[in-house]
């Protein structure tokens, strides 16, 4: 696939208990040529809580921000969990569900974790 192929990496599982979100961020770092968009949805939104232990994946967040990639969070998933933007780290952007949805279905490849 050409480099302008749109790649979305979808974090849908909570950050602890499994290594899925960590591995998703590691994969985003590895596929940087495609400028992947990382989207946290459902329980994946807990990945970016301010107070969550991020020691295993903070470096991936830092790297992705250094190369100007965006980390999106689905607003609807936040609301369902009683969370707001202020509970999250500054590095992420919150988008409403229809925007998030458009990015997902508009991607040529979606990798779910």
């Amino acid at each position, binding site marked *: 696939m050409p480099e302008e192929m749109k790649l979305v990496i*979808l974090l*849908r599982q909570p950050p602890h208990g499994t290594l899925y979100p960590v591995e998703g961020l590691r994969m985003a770092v590895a596929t940087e040529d495609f400028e992947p968009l990382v989207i946290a*949805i*459902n329980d994946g939104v807990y990945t970016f809580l301010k107070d969550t232990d991020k020691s295993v994946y903070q470096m991936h967040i830092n790297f992705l921000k250094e190369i100007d990639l965006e980390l999106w969070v689905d607003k609807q998933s936040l609301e369902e969990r009683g969370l707001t933007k202020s509970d999250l780290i500054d590095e992420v952007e919150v988008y409403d*569900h*229809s925007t998030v*949805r458009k990015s*997902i*279905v*508009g*991607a*040529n*490849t*979606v*990798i*779910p974790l």
Partner: protein
Amino acid sequence: MSKILFFLTCECKLGMDLALEQEGNGDQVTICLLQNAIYNANKTNKQLDDCIIRDVSVYAGEEDVQKRGIKKHLHPEVKLLDYGEVIDLVLEQDNIVNL
């Protein structure tokens, strides 16, 4: 106008939710169900009805349906594919939403 395939291989509801929210902007949406995602094709699943009303094509892996013995419980609009036909379907798409 894109050909979008929801390639669903687990029971996670997210794939069906996203397919259902499709806004009818001319994209051609297809759902392919494999493994335990097959259970989403149960005819009592209202989400599936809504998808089909919106002209979404829904396919299910024949071997997976067979193994699970749920052929007669499937929505009548769900078409069965063997693995070769799944590959053909995949190659026709512009976008693949794996879930």
